[in-house]
């Protein structure tokens, strides 16, 4: 059944309706107010258009994981390397144009009728005073009202002008037609598909490819310039949204910078671009305002987290879901050392040591080693009992560890002030200068935090990369590939694993300390399971094992939600949906590391990560090759 067939069209109409229905249920129209109907129609149009482009009889797109491996890294944003061009080609045989138009019309009408029918049903129900659901009652009048284009009050009093319903049908019909026209036009312009991989191929074929490359390199600098310009008083974009818009551009600039570096020719050119970008980023704390700085600070705190977790999960292959524990340890350690609140335990301890408890006890930099050390110890303490665990057993135990730490923070009231948290944690100074001397004038307090975050994460990245290049990194990777062989090749498993945990924890501790001083107040809820999940998600979305990818992941997962703050209630749904899509279209992450790309090649069934864990869990069992291979049937195990 080709999508241009009649029931194909109706099917698309139904799918569109289902999706719009979801949007209506979650209250989007109410949120949009007057513009609800046009926007929904636009959504429908986009949907139909996408269907007409990609929903071809044979979209033989290579298995997506494979697809992500090909193409030039510089262009691999978003959509996968789809070979759907063929499909589109096969879409319009002969008088295809009219067929497509008919398809669009039909689909549009279907959706329109359904939507109109639904709103009519709802409206009349509410009008007649029927209670739809105690719950739905709250949102329905506002939503349906917006959808029909009348005030909630009008619906309640059941005075809705009837012509509104045909109007809805009209809107969606137009949407369908418009989509069809667009598809035909695109076909006429013979532009195959919008997927980035295609685009890169297209650009490759052009003579001015180098110009495109330079454009790619120039982009972040242009954006930086724009950000600076936005900073000038009086300049503004989109009215009062200026702050958000500027933040968005800051995020994009930072992200596209990483691509620019990849686009540059290796060698001197690359060095220069990287240097300039580094300078550009270093100026940001000075030009951004309090809010943008605070967000960027958070982003780079999570970059540190990501880099640390990446050592445990990405390099050593130990799935850790309790990573937040070390973050919390770092944060609370610093809080104890620098906040007015002092728990009896600690003050007793101080009296014991004969230290006079003045506040802050230690400055940021003197406290840093303490926080790092405490976190590292925590890492080792967690590491020892889980040394023999693999895969998901490890995952759940670490998760439990994280929860235990949080519950202690919450319930050990005397030690941690319980749910009321620890307030007024002091900010980093420098060379004995008090923090205030930075939080004034050209560098706002949050800007200072951002600067510290930048530098610290740079250091962390440096250490992580160097270690990964050393024999320790090779040992980690070997361990991830095949524990027993690694050991038989001379890798000391216990030491190597504990090192991974300890180093990862140390980085998390640094991040936690900076987080505490950024937040000024910390509460146990700040250290819920979701922090671990965020950290894990950002390294996987970014591209596990690749530091650049981790930065991108942090920008996307911690930065974008702040941009979406205007639509807060939809933030998480969007985030979650994008997470799933991301995993489907680009399992290797935005900027995968070379090894990762090998891993996700469709050839290996469950992927090496499993291969290591698949083998025996019980150390007492004799070790043999992966069970997936038939040869092993012949292995000399007494079955």
């Amino acid at each position, binding site marked *: 059944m080709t999508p241009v067939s009649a029931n194909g069209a109706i099917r698309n109409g139904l799918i569109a309706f289902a999706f719009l229905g979801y949007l209506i249920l979650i209250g989007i129209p109410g949120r949009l107010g007057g513009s609800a109907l046009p926007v929904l129609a636009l959504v429908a149009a986009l949907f139909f258009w996408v269907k007409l482009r990609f929903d071809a009889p044979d979209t033989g797109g290579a298995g997506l994981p494979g697809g992500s491996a090909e193409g030039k890294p510089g262009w691999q944003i978003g959509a996968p390397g789809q070979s759907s061009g063929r499909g589109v080609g096969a879409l319009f045989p002969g008088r295809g144009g009219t067929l497509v138009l008919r398809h669009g019309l039909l689909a549009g009408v279907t959706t329109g009728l359904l939507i109109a029918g639904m709103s009519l049903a709802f409206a009349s129900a509410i009008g007649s005073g029927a209670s739809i659901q105690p719950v739905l009652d709250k949102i329905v009048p506002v939503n349906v009202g917006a959808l029909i284009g009348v005030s909630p009050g009008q619906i309640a009093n059941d005075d809705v002008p009837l012509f509104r319903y045909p109007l809805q049908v009209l809107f969606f019909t137009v949407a369908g037609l418009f989509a069809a026209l667009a598809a035909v036009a695109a076909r006429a312009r013979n532009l195959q598909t919008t997927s980035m991989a295609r685009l890169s191929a297209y650009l490759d074929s052009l003579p001015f490819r180098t110009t495109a490359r330079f454009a790619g390199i120039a982009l972040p600098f242009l954006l930086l310039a724009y950000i600076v310009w936005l900073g000038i008083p009086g300049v503004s974009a989109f009215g009062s949204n200026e702050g958000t818009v500027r933040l968005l551009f800051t995020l994009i600039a930072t992200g596209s910078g990483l691509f620019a570096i990849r686009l540059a020719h290796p060698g001197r050119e690359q060095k220069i671009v990287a240097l300039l970008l580094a300078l550009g980023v270093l100026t940001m704390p000075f030009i951004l305002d309090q809010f943008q700085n605070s967000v960027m600070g958070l982003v780079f705190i999570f970059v540190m987290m990501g880099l640390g977790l990446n050592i445990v999960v990405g390099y050593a292959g130990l799935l850790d879901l309790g990573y937040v524990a070390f973050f919390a340890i770092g944060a609370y350690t610093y809080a104890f050392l620098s906040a007015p609140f002092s728990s009896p335990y600690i003050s007793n301890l101080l009296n014991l040591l004969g230290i006079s408890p003045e506040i802050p006890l230690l400055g940021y930099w003197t406290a840093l080693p303490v926080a790092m050390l405490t976190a590292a110890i925590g890492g080792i303490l967690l590491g020892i009992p889980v040394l023999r665990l693999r895969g998901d057993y490890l995952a759940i135990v670490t998760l439990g560890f994280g929860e235990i730490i949080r519950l202690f923070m919450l319930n050990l009231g005397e030690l941690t002030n319980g749910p009321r948290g620890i307030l007024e944690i002091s900010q980093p100074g420098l060379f004995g200068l008090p923090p205030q001397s930075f939080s004034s004038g050209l560098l706002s307090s949050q800007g200072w935090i951002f600067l510290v975050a930048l530098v610290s994460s740079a250091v962390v990245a*440096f*250490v992580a990369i*160097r*270690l990964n*290049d*050393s*024999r*320790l990194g*090779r*040992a980690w*990777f*070997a361990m991830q*590939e*095949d524990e*027993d*062989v*690694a*050991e*038989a*090749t*001379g*890798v*000391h*498993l216990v030491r190597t694993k504990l*090192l991974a945990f300890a180093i990862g924890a140390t980085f998390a501790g640094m991040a936690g300390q900076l987080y505490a001083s950024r937040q000024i107040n910390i509460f146990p809820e700040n250290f819920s399971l979701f922090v671990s999940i965020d950290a894990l998600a950002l390294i996987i979305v970014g591209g596990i094992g690749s530091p650049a990818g981790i930065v991108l992941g942090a920008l996307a997962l911690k930065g974008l939600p702040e941009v979406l703050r205007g639509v807060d209630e939809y933030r998480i749904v969007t985030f979650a949906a994008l997470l799933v899509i991301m995993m489907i279209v680009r399992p290797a992450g935005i900027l995968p590391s070379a*090894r990762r790309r*090998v*891993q996700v090649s469709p*050839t*290996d069934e469950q992927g*090496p990560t499993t*291969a290591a864990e698949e083998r025996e869990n019980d150390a007492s069992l*004799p*070790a*043999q*090759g992966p069970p997936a*291979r038939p*040869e*092993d049937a*012949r*292995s*000399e*195990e*007494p079955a």
Partner: protein
Amino acid sequence: MTALLSIQAVTKVFGGLTAVDNVDVDIAERSITSLIGPNGAGKTTLFNCLTGLHRPEAGEILFDGRSLIGLRPDEITARGVARTYQNIRLFGRMTALENVLVGQHLRLHASHWSAILRSTRQQAEERAARTFALELLAFVGLESHAEVVSTNLPYGEQRLLEVARALGSRPSLLLLDEPAAGMNPSETDRMMELVHRLRDEMGITIFLIEHDMKVVMSVSETVAVLDYGEKIAEGTPEEVRANARVVEAYLGPEVVLQDTADTPNL
């Protein structure tokens, strides 16, 4: 001359089943010894006992006169025992070169701090390691594939790479588990030649498990035969082949004939 490795009355039991039953084998320095026996005879289990993957219930394993019993695999490797695997177990996502570098793990000593700071000493060590790795790859004939990801290597070359990785730890005793399994004749010849060169050029003692009689008879100076975990014979290939018990327990008449046909130059 004294035995480099002496296995004394080693016994390994899984549940009720005795996989290795009171086996004694002595392996002389710079010798090539084969361990043969039908499937399930306990050959690989014996290897696993040697490399510390299993812990024998009883018996003693002396290497250079010191006991290996109870040592961790990495400690045993440090003593100078390296092995390959029956079903190839390379680090799949690593390049050939990286595999061999991991093989050298024990021979590298730069601290992690120096790795972070890229101290000259650590740099020098890494460079030396690379050159040695390339030499080893050249030795097994993979110099051209140094940067190839190991899963993408053809089967035979993966076996060669396993040998190179094992050599990375500079062993004095090398355990080869069916090195020629699944190889075509030309690859097999290449492997046999490699085994000889290992002994002659590197002076490494070889202890190998093999099913292919052609290989066994041509490379080994001593042959030990396991059957149901027991050693039923030991001696030169000729003696073993002559041994009636071996013949009926393991080879079977027609194999003998075929073998004599294949190997006239014995």
